[in-house]
């Protein structure tokens, strides 16, 4: 597969690889994709008191495009509010990385991961309010 220099750079020097404490209430966790499909992205966000994402981490099992998409989206959501983060479209990721059409699903997974991590964070915190 012929990749853009943006993908190659993020593959070589991935930003924000790692994990956050899943039990921390300020952390939202998402695992999307399936091993049998060849792509799994785990993405975590840590939200501060202002409701902004101040840390984002990922781990990825997948091709270069999957690694680059998830790394890029963690860069983009850092410092953003949850509304802003959820507004990031997979097409923007695919465009920035010049992903070939056959790899577009990698950017879809990255977008899905952000959405699910936010939902997880919100769920944890709404439960806290109710309790």
């Amino acid at each position: 597969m012929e990749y853009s220099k943006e993908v190659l750079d993020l593959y070589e020097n991935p930003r924000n690889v790692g994990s956050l404490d899943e039990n921390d209430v300020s952390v939202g966790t998402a695992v999307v994709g399936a091993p049998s499909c060849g792509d799994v992205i785990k993405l975590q966000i840590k939200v501060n008191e202002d409701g902004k994402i101040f840390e984002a981490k990922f781990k990825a099992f997948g091709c270069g495009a999957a690694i680059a998409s998830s790394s890029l989206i963690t860069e983009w959501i850092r410092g953003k509010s949850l509304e802003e983060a959820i507004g990031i479209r997979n097409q923007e990721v695919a465009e920035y990385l010049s992903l070939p059409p056959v790899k577009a699903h990698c950017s879809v997974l990255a977008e899905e991961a952000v959405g699910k991590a936010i939902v997880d964070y919100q769920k944890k915190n709404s439960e806290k309010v109710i309790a």
Partner: protein
Amino acid sequence: MERTQRRSEVIYLDYQATTPCDRRVLDEVIPYFCEEFGNPHSVNHIMGRTAKAAIETARSNVAELIGAESPEDIIFTSGATEANNLALQGIARFYREKGDRIIISEIEHKCVIEASRALERDGFDVIRIPVSRKGIVDLQVLEEALSDRTLLVSIMSVNNEIGTIQPIAEISEICKRHGVFFHTDAAQAAGKIELNAFQVDLMSISGHKIYGPKGIGALYVRKKPRIRLIPLLYGGGQERGLRSGTLPTPLCVGLGKACEIARQEMQSEAARLAQLKEYFLSVLFSNLEKVYLNGDVDSRCIPGCLNLSFAGVEGEAIMLGMPEICISSGSACTSETLQPSHVLRALSVREELAHSSLRIGFGRFTTLEEVKFASEKLVEVVNKLRQMSPLW
């Protein structure tokens, strides 16, 4: 022999995909482009006869490598894809009154699978028999699939992804007993293992898999007792009327020379490749956990082909981490269709491990230095990717 026939900045370990043309083959071929350019079918003058003589020498070399009874059994084609299509379609269409069932294995090359699918669309009944976890056809299953209406069995000699060797003699025996034609795609087997074409009815080989030119192959079509085929191409009736078209003399000569060299060096080369493979595996197994060999681990496998799965990491991602090393992956991510390898699926390799697979092929110009470098690099890349894998 010099093993310096390669680009210094890359390490080529994809010998099942294609091989470089051996310089000795090239040297033999060159005169037939500009000097001895006669049409081998123009036998009424000296130029034509010279070309024809060169082609007949090549034909003998092909016959000898694959264990054919006579050079007359060999039909030159454009490659194994054409040879396989000619065999399957040719038999099916000529003998369709006699039956309509064709049996292949689930791990055949795409060209056999697609040729049989085309026949299926024409009303033939195609049975794809499964293989064991080691990638070997179960003879009992084969026998059960045979019926009175079966025309042809087509089972490859050596698989192109996992390198396993099928029990060709036994399959041949079963086919004979049932009076069914037996074709074998030997593109990956020729020059690597001893072949006995006389045991089968049809056998395909390819030039570029054995250090010959691309664009040439051959189909062995047993002449006694005669096997008849409907040709794919009509024209001047060359090649016993089975494959019309002026023969490309340089390519035929190249295939012949490649077969001659392969025959002479097969044994020593097999031993050398087995050592390289052993070394490569020892580096991987002593430095990495959860590396799995796909296919057969014992001797029913050619030495130059390795198919490995690296748990927790995806094949294309590994390849991206070592761009100077040319290998292949069975991962969906390397295919346009996003389907993982049909061969690994047929072996019941877990899908995630199919995505984690690499095929590494050693060949005539592979050196120990290259194997050492590639194995160490592979360990490094797999470790790096495992650190960022959510599955590890």
